[in-house]
């Protein structure tokens, strides 16, 4: 926080034990992401980008190395502490939306606040979040009554409702048609514009990456290339 970096990771490694074999998914990654940046993480499968996303999103801990999220050292936190960090500081947008199918859009958006113990104004905040993604008239609909694009918008509302430090989007347009995909990207980028939210995309899609400011290429558990995107370069 003090030095303006939301994410400050040093020499992060991750080793999985698969039976007898040790798999080195990350071999020492240094990463600095400043507040308000729009970053995409790319790389072929097996490059370690999912692992990196899990660690950056506090779903998992690195085997070694240090990781500060908004100045808090999260590398050695307990499961419940990590849960609290995810709740307050990380918003997730998944490829397959991951909404609770039996709950209304409103309840889905309220979920992170419930785990945060927010009681007063919860409904109001959830409605505002849904309105900000253009779903103010769909709050009582269940996911199966919504289109894919609308479901992803509910997921975005859920991700931003606790005012997180970062929003992590894992192939957010992967399950959507082109038009809905563009809308989703517009909404996400709009969040950055309006609120300065830090966005991190994990994607295969060069077109998505080209809409971001900075592209980090991973290969074999290492950063292969860290560059500004054409969008920024052309400005």
């Amino acid at each position: 926080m003090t030095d303006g970096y939301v994410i400050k990771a040093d020499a992060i490694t991750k080793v999985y034990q698969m039976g007898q074999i040790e798999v080195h998914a990350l071999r020492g990654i240094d990463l600095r992401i400043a507040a308000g940046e729009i970053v995409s993480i790319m790389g072929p499968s097996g490059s370690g980008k999912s692992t990196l996303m899990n660690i950056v999103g506090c779903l998992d801990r690195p085997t070694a190395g240090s990781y500060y999220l908004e100045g808090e050292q999260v590398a050695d936190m307990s499961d419940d502490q990590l849960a609290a960090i995810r709740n307050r500081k990380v918003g997730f947008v998944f490829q397959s939306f991951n909404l609770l199918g039996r709950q209304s859009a409103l309840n889905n958006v309220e979920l992170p606040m419930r785990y945060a113990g927010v009681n007063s104004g919860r409904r109001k905040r959830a409605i505002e979040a849904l309105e900000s993604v253009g779903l103010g008239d769909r709050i009582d609909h269940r996911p199966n009554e919504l289109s894919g694009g609308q479901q992803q918008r509910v997921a975005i509302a859920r991700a931003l409702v606790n005012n997180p430090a970062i929003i992590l989007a894992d192939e957010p347009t992967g399950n959507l048609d082109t038009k809905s995909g563009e809308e989703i990207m517009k909404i996400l980028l709009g969040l950055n514009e309006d609120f300065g939210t830090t966005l991190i995309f994990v994607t295969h899609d060069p077109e998505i990456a080209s809409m971001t400011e900075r592209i980090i290429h991973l290969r074999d558990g290492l950063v292969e290339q860290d560059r500004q995107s054409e969008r920024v370069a052309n400005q």
Partner: protein
Amino acid sequence: MNFWQGLLEALQSLSSNKLRSALTILGIVIGVGAVIAMLAIGRGAQDTITGSISGIGTNLLFVVPGGSEEVSNPKPLTLTDAEALRDSFVAPSVTGVAPIITGNVELSFAGESLFTQGYGVTPDYMPVRNVEMLEGEFIGEVHILGRAAVVVLGPDAAEELFGRSEGVIGETVRIGGQPFRVLGVMVPRGGSGFSNPDELIMIPLSTAQTRLFSRSRDSVDMIMVQAISAEGVSRATEEVASLLRTRHRTAIGEDDFTIFTQQDFLQTATTITNVLTIFLGGIAAISLLVGGIGIMNIMLVSVTERTREIGLRKAVGARKRDIMLQFLTESSLLSLMGGLIGIALGWGLSTLVGVIATSQDVELLPNMGLDAILLATIFSTAVGLFFGLYPAKRAADLEPVEALRYE
């Protein structure tokens, strides 16, 4: 996560798969229903039995021959023993003494015959047992002295022989082939259970000794003793015992007689019915256990099915105990609902048994206590909690990364 929200979510989740939830709680329904029904019926039986024992009278003592087995040369109870008990100096707490000999008899009248129990009694039997006459009179001193061939009938015995219980005085019935004149009919006492007191017949003790039941001179089968009051029963017991010990010259602790009081009968009956109730309740509890395992099974399936949901919940900030609580709420809600339906089922079952019993002329009023309901509710919820614990723990311990990736 707020309690009511958790409850609401659990309800939604359970109702989204109604058939499965219904089948899952069936085990608990049957288990709780069986426990409730068994307890209610057991208690009803207990009430009936203790009620009929209470009908005996609270101030009665029954003295029968025979005591502990080591007694050498046990002596029978005799009429002179009974006579001695009347001494108000030796036994001040005793107000009435009625020696009895009993035997099985066959009565016949105009082709109808009836096997029943006959009592050879003295006139004292009437006040001691509070006998009231429907018609006619009870056995008197004159019948004893004359060894008269007279009989007093219980109302049911009269009904079976004559088809009526009144207007039978003066008729002659045959007992064991010998003619006896009907002296009177007793008022029904009611109360069923062991033996029907309304089917008994009474004849003079002396007549019974000499003409019906062969007994060695003077010996009797039982002496009924009436204490001055219910509170005087224990004193009367002491007095009777010490007098008989003196007369029979037995050492203390080697009585050759046994004294029962109504309290003893009550205690025995209560013990028996308690054991029965516990036994039946135990069997029913096993089905409750099986129901619990059913819940555990379904909860495990549910955890596996909802792995992704668990992963998502963890990703947005659910702690271990949030997940744990969510699944425990579901499993205990399941078993609580099963318990409530089971209580209704148990009530229905026991009522049905009561109706059937009544239609068979058996007095049995199932008694479903509030404590049984409370116990069943608490116990079934506890079963759900206990058997939900393992699946819930499994859900709570899922790694968020793994759970999110689960297909």
